[in-house]
């Protein structure tokens, strides 16, 4: 009332009184709403002694599998608690949540148990998540090592294939042929064979000339028409000659390995065989054995020539055999190279496929390792005490509104009462009414600038109330701000997370 008495005059004073009382009631109502938690908390503590307290903690883990494995592995109830305490602990797993509940007569005991179990469980979950994570990381590293080996194999196959294709080209060519020893030998043999045949043809020509000079009525039997530049068309069948021409034409364009040329060569050999078989006495044996003795007997020079021709013919024959075998060898060798190239190509393809699949496998393994690491980090523990559930549920807004309305009514009543019992003289009417003295003069507020105590007191009174309101509002803000609970929860989590390993 003293503070109210310091307030000013008339309607302003009434407004001050009503407003301040309303605000005070509002603040009181809000404070009541805030304090209800504490009151209910204390009441629940008192009740807990007789009724028992139910405390619980909820675990959440990103991976339900990790959580269930960890809880199964840790054997929470048995390993941690004595038998009588273990019976009061319930563990329920729902998906990736685990709910621990404890029923104890004392709230602090229940909280202690829940906290202890929660820290143990969180440690177990973290440990398990660590193990899973390290295992996943090891698997990923193994796959990576395998992938590295596969890539090395593929690189080796690629190098070998490149070497094969450069040193033994599948496509024949002038340079490629020279790189192969067999081919080189075949070409040399063919050159030697051609030279030997030319020599044989020359010998035949000389021999024929010599025989003509010796007036022999019968021309000597014709040697097989092997030489391309042979001058005796009689001894060479036309078919053989045509074949030789064709072969010569083709040899200008391709090698002997070409299938067409090889076929022509084979046909020519067959035809020549046939011709040799028909004129065997005149072909093979005639130069050396047939007419030679008689001729040599008659002309020693002729005989010598014939002997020379026989040697050349033998060389030709040997060279032909060698060429045949070499051709066969070259063909075999080419086939082997082709087969090897095909095999390496296949190996290369398979290793590429393997690398692709291994890369995918590695990606999956890495993802799994990352997920197991994240599941460890996402573990959270929350302790819920039953005291929070004992609140009446009336909101601060409702209580504040009711308080403000009640305060307004009360304030108006108080203003009327204060008006009735106001002990302060403010106006000339007050003075005349209560002092029974005439008012000689009224000096308005402000006229005496140096002496206006009333205004000073008004300011101080208003300032006092303003300070009270500001402090109360700040206090209410601190209490009512919902973010504080979140902050407190975060702080608590941080503290429990730091406490648990």
């Amino acid at each position: 009332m003293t503070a109210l008495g310091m307030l000013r005059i008339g309607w302003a004073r009434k407004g001050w009184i009503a407003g301040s009382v309303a605000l005070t009631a509002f603040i009181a109502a809000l404070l009541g709403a805030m304090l209800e938690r504490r009151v209910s908390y204390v009441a629940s503590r008192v009740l807990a002694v007789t009724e028992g307290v139910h405390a619980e903690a909820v675990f959440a883990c990103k991976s339900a599998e990790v959580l269930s494995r960890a809880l199964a592995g840790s054997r929470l109830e048995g390993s941690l608690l004595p038998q009588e305490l273990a019976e009061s602990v319930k563990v329920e797993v729902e998906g990736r949540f685990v709910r621990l509940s404890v029923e104890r007569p004392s709230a602090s005991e229940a909280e202690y148990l829940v906290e202890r179990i929660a820290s143990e469980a969180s440690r177990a979950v973290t440990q398990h998540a660590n193990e899973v994570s390290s295992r996943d990381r090891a698997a990923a590293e193994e796959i990576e090592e395998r992938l590295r080996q596969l890539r090395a194999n593929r690189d080796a196959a690629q190098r070998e294939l490149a070497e094969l294709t450069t040193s033994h080209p599948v496509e024949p060519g002038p340079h490629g042929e020279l790189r192969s020893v067999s081919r080189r030998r075949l070409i040399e043999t063919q050159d030697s064979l051609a030279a030997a045949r030319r020599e044989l043809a020359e010998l035949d020509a000389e021999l024929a000339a010599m025989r003509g000079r010796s007036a022999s009525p019968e021309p000597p039997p014709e040697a097989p028409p092997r030489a391309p530049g042979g001058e005796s068309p009689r001894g060479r069948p036309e078919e053989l000659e045509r074949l030789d021409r064709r072969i010569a034409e083709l040899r200008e364009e391709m090698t002997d390995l070409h299938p067409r040329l090889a076929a022509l060569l084979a046909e020519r050999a067959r035809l020549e065989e046939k011709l040799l078989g028909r004129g065997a006495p005149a072909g093979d044996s005639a130069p050396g054995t047939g007419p030679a003795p008689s001729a040599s007997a008659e002309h020693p020079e002729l005989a010598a020539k014939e002997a020379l021709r026989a040697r050349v013919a033998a060389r030709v024959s040997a060279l032909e055999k060698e060429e045949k075998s070499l051709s066969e060898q070259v063909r075999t060798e080419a086939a082997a190279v082709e087969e090897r190239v095909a095999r390496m190509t296949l190996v290369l393809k398979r290793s590429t496929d393997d690398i692709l699949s291994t890369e995918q496998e590695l990606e999956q393994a890495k993802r799994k390792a990352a997920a197991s690491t994240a599941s460890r980090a996402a573990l959270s523990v929350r302790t819920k005490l039953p005291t929070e559930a004992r609140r009446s549920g009336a909101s601060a807004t409702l209580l504040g509104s009711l308080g403000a309305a009640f305060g307004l009514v009360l304030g108006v009543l108080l203003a009327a009462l204060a008006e009735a019992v106001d002990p302060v003289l403010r106006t000339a009417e007050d003075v005349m009414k209560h002092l029974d003295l005439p008012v000689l003069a009224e000096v308005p507020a402000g006229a005496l600038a140096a002496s206006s105590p009333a205004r000073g007191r008004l300011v101080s009174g208003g300032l006092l109330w303003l300070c009270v309101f500001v402090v109360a509002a700040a206090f209410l803000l601190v209490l009512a701000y919902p973010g504080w609970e979140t902050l407190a929860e975060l702080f608590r989590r941080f503290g429990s997370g730091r406490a648990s390993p």
Partner: protein
Amino acid sequence: MNVLGEAFRRSVERSRQKASSAETVRSRPVRPAGAEDTMKLACPPAQAASGAGGQAEGGASGDPFEFLRRARRVATFAEGPLAPGCDILAGLRSAVFSAGLATPPATILVTGPSRSSGKTAVAAGLAGELARDLLYRVLLVDADIRRPGVAALLQVDTELDLADVLEGRSEAAEAVVYSEGDNLSVLALRAGSRLSAETLASAASRELFSMLRQAFDYVVIDAGDTASSAVPRVLASGATGTVLVLPAGVTRERARESAAAIRSAGGKVVGVVLTGAPRR
């Protein structure tokens, strides 16, 4: 000065005639017989000290203007928050006259229940307003021994002050400062002077104030507040009337106590000046 003196003389004689015809002498305080005749207006300090014992010797008793002639003079005083001539002071003067103080000589005590309520401003304003029309000789005395404020308010020289006069160091006429422009005389009190209520209650004080009443038509005394000082009670009995200065917001109890203090000391509360009142 001659014009001023003539005006004074005429106005004083006129008012005395009027007062005697209206039989208003009852409001004048009872004084020892012959005191007016024996008190020296310009007594030397030693004589003034001896006069404090009631032995005021005769002197310039017949010439009330002797006091003004010997007073220190200034052109004008500084103007307080309430300037003479304003509506408030005009109303106050009328009300004071209506309350029974219309007949000089009169001593008006200005006091109140609390400090800083505007007593000094009201006293200075009332004295200035009374002196404004040159009809009366008006003296403003600062007797607020706790917080003397007249000297500071009106910018009055306090080389000699009330304490000097009462303690015998100076003559009253020498301590008074007279402003021709304002037609106002001031007997100030230095800040920090150790004047006590006992000194003001002494016989010398009574002699001094009775002498001042003779010399001036109106003596307005700023007496400080009744709550912290005994001066209002001491001077109330010698005053013709007391004006209570009440600040708006003062409690009824304090106002009643203040009025009761004046009445119990034999004073008469003629009315209230309400300061800091809400504007209408």
